[in-house]
């Protein structure tokens, strides 16, 4: 099937999902949540004030209109104003996204390179001490709560030893660097356990395939078998994994950012939770979903590019 056909069909499939998601968000935030005016204005608000606010927030319109509002906001990126800061949400999110990138992208690159390399090493020495210790270490690291890493890390390296900044952020390159190193390291530690185990499994699965036996029978050294033959076949799963992580990354930094006072997407979400800032949480949910869907699509397309079997069938 033609690549364009495939993309088109894939896009078509997105439509019912988008409708479903917007419906779900609508149900959660507009129906179940109920009328927030009382919370916002306090107990002593007059009926008139409440009605005004309701109108301003668009809550007095029909369910259908409110639902369409959600769809519209997903496409126009207009999310209204924050309840706590009264600022326009869209630009807030824009700036915050930029900040998150400075933290998340380097951490992502480091984690990916490290975990794939470690997984390759583990696969190369499969069954032996190196491999088994790596697995054990990964499992142990995965079992410690992220919260602990953050608290201990911050306390030990920033507070006690003073090697890094405790919290805060400075805009602009290279000013932000001292602020992102420690949180970045913690982000790497948080995910590396999972990643190594995942990549190791993927690579090992390939290792048991018949073509590997043929490659060895040709006389090729083990490292060549691993890096050329196995890796290329594992690429599909590896790439999928890499891409899928991207949207989750931005939010996984929720805790790290809030701790280290970094005003990224995670930071403002945390802030919103603490201040019951409803529209921000709603906006973040919509945006992260949109990106998740887009990235899923990109992954599927990349699949077809990397694996010739899919491309040419």
């Amino acid at each position, binding site marked *: 099937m033609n690549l364009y056909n495939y993309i088109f069909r894939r896009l078509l499939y997105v439509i019912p999902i988008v409708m479903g998601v917007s419906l779900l968000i609508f149900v959660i935030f507009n129906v179940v949540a109920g009328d927030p005016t009382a919370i916002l204005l306090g107990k002593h608000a007059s009926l008139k004030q409440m009605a005004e606010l309701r109108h301003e927030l668009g809550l007095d319109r029909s369910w259908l209109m409110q639902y369409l509002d959600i769809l519209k906001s997903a496409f126009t990126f207009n999310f209204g104003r924050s309840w706590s800061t009264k600022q326009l949400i869209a630009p807030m999110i824009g700036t915050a996204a930029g900040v998150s990138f400075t933290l998340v992208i380097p951490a992502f690159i480091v984690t990916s390179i490290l975990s794939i390399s470690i997984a390759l090493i583990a696969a190369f020495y499969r069954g032996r001490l190196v491999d088994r210790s790596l697995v054990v270490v990964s499992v142990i690291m995965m079992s410690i709560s992220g919260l*602990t890493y953050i*608290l*201990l890390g911050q306390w030990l390296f920033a507070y006690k030893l003073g090697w890094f900044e405790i919290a805060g952020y400075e805009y602009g390159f290279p000013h932000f660097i001292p602020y992102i190193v420690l949180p970045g390291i913690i982000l790497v530690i948080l995910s590396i356990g999972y990643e190594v185990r995942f990549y190791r499994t993927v690579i090992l699965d390939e290792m048991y395939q018949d073509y590997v036996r043929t490659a060895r029978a040709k006389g090729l050294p083990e490292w060549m078998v691993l890096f050329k033959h196995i890796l290329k076949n594992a690429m599909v799963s590896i790439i999928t994994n890499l891409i899928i992580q991207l949207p*989750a990354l931005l939010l996984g930094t929720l805790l790290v950012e809030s701790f280290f006072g970094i005003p990224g997407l995670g930071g403002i979400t945390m802030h919103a939770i603490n201040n019951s800032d409803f529209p921000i*949480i709603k906006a973040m949910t919509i945006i*992260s979903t949109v990106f998740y869907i887009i990235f899923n699509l990109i992954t599927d397309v990349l699949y077809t590019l990397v694996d010739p079997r899919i491309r040419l069938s």
Partner: protein
Amino acid sequence: MTRAFTKSIWIQAFSRMAKSKLTITALVVVIGYSLIALLAHWGILANDWQLEIGNSYEAPNIHHWFGTDIFGRSVFAKIVKSTEVAMNVGFVVSIIAITIGVVLGAIGGYFGGVVDELIVWIYSTLAAIPNIMLLISLTFILGKGILAIYIALGMTNWVEICRLIRGEVIRQKDREYVQAATAIGASSFSKLALHILPNVMHIVIIQFSAIFQSAIKSEVILSYLGLGIQNGPSWGVMINDAKVELMQGAWWQLIFSTMAMFLIVLAFNILSDALRDALDPKLRGK
């Protein structure tokens, strides 16, 4: 042979698991935690966790093995009580998620057609929202308290097992033993319940362990964020307290709650791996 999974395969799998000391240890830990949780639930253990029994911020000593918190409460008692919360959440959420996932997955996989499309649409929709945002949104809206946690965690955990069960049911429904059952006039329901489902049980068992563990970890994070259980102790709340405590040099709440959580999560990790190695037909062939 009416099943792909005969009793002897189960026995073989479990006896193979039993050979590993590590797996047995993990199982013992899980059972131990469950016992502690039950005892706490019935009030036999740590019933008095709220009482002020010592001075503020006492370091671990003979009277208070894990020290005290800011209110002078026994950290040990709080940890025990939190175990109850954790095991409770893990268990209930697993049951909810597995029930929904298995029922929907089996129905969708078996009947196909519009019903299946609908079910796939439902879980694809849920899956399209990143888990953590969904969790936050749900708990935010549903308010604090344990019911909100059950619902939120239940909703975010059933999709994976639904997918797996659906896939497996689709694979199994054209197998000979199902055709044989049809030939003798078995109804759809009995085919599904009596013949196919036992052959997907291995997925359920593996997922039970995985979801239990994931629920515990999520609950800790939610409590930490202030979105979860607020009226009782929880490892998450204790870790949250530690934010301030560390600055004052009080490390014990953090360390002990982390260790308590670490042990049970590690135990479940080991169990899940062992179960997967023992029960996954693909791996068994190697």
